């Protein structure tokens, strides 16, 4: 584990060299540790697959060089903790996307095979990014890895289930986007009006980093 400065009062911690099971377990453990026990002066953290950005208050943490060794040591310890696996969240899906046939042709598969390969695995949420609550899911069967569209669509509807490179994901808002749309879900992955019983804002987001996801095919597709 090491870190590089990322502007004043910010550090990019690298905890893995490549995406994989080991990196994923570390990412989840580090996120959990930063939520439960944030280092002094931490304003915000942004986890990705192999790195996590830490932004500090310059007043409380005047020197990153002084503060980071201890923080790295704590994250290192946290990263070795084995966390119980998150429960599997089921997401209904209908495979009726405009790019389904093209994806099938590109891989010399039938559309039925594409659906089968896509619905089979239990995916993990590697990270949320691109749009509020947008999950990058893996591991996608290598036979389905498909490059993004050369020209992104001006509008992809919320709920679109799509493949971008080696990830699959779910559009959470209507937005321009370049992933290959293979289906859709009625599940509201991001709902700005949803609150938990205690009024908590996190309920807006159906999925969080580390969750496990299984696509369940709806009738008719």
């Amino acid at each position, binding site marked *: 584990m090491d870190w590089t400065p990322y502007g004043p009062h910010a550090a990019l911690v690298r905890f893995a060299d490549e995406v994989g099971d080991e990196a994923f377990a570390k990412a989840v453990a580090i996120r959990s540790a930063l939520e439960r026990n944030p280092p002094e002066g931490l304003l915000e953290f942004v986890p990705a697959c192999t*790195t996590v950005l830490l932004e500090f208050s310059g007043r409380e943490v005047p020197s990153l060089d002084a503060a980071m060794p201890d923080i790295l040591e704590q994250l290192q310890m946290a990263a070795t903790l084995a966390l119980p696996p998150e429960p599997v969240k089921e997401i209904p899906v209908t495979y009726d996307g405009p790019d389904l046939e093209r994806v099938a042709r590109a891989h010399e598969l039938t559309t039925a095979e594409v659906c089968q390969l896509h619905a089979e695995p239990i995916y993990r949420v590697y990270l*949320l990014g*691109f749009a509020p609550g*947008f999950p990058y899911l893996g591991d996608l069967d290598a036979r389905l890895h498909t490059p993004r569209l050369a020209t992104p669509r001006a509008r992809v509807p919320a709920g679109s289930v799509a493949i971008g490179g080696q990830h699959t994901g779910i559009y959470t808002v209507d937005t321009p986007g370049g992933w290959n749309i293979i289906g859709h879900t009625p599940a509201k992955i991001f709902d700005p009006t949803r609150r938990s019983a205690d009024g908590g804002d996190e309920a807006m987001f159906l999925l969080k980093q580390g969750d496990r996801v299984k696509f369940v095919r709806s009738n008719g597709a």
Partner: protein
Amino acid sequence: MSAHLLEVLDPGLGATFQDRGRAGWRRFGVPPSGAMDDHAAGWANALLDNSPTAPVVELLLQGAKFLALHDCWIAVCGADAEASVPTWRAVWLRADDEVRFLRNRSGVWTYLAVEGGFDAPLQLGSASVYARGRLGTPLVRGDVLLRTPGAPFRLPAGVAGRSVVWEERRNYDATPILRVWPGPQWNSFSEKDRTAFLEQTWTVTPQSDRVGYRLSGQPLAPGQWQMVSEPLRVGTVQFPEDGQPIVMMRDGPTVGGYPKLGVVDAHDVARLAQCRPGRAVKFRLAAETAV
């Protein structure tokens, strides 16, 4: 005193509530948002003794028009959009007065503050509108803007007016020299490219908005390396394959897969924000760093 202060007669090219942004939600994929020029927005609030966190209305370029429904103090700072009221000062508005922003002459973003601050709905702790992410909605014709209940603004006794000192009013037509800090891939760029980045003049392109400002110039060679997506910051300078920089702004994505040469100093992001397409910008290193 009525809380109904202003009616939107025309939102112009774009009018949204903004404040200092929403902190702590980037790990859920939610960008910080907030005023693109926090310097000008901050002065609009400061002129009226508002909290620095009070929401203001951010206007894009020109065309906005408001009707005062009640006597009130307002302040307009930022881009010169030929406002019908004096700018960079506290202004006493009478009921039925109109405030118009006719023509953009300089800069991009103009800020309108009202005494006490606008009463705007909060989402994830902030009034900043991030329409693409369904957090808040832009203002439309007919919207009635409210003020936060509280003590009305008064000029201190014996003072005829209040305005921002000249040194704090920026010239948005000058070429800004933006301080940049080395980013995570600084050392992955060749010394020649780092020097080229710092020595040349870049031009702001029309593909610039609240998400990011694209610049054009002599392209660098960021290489074809395949990168795992890493977190982005406001001000991160990314280089896609075409070698032309994109500076991430306040509605930008939270992660990205392009090499990150550096990050524009937080104080200078506001200077870049006010650069219209075609304007030249330069970079210099913020700290003593070996090129």
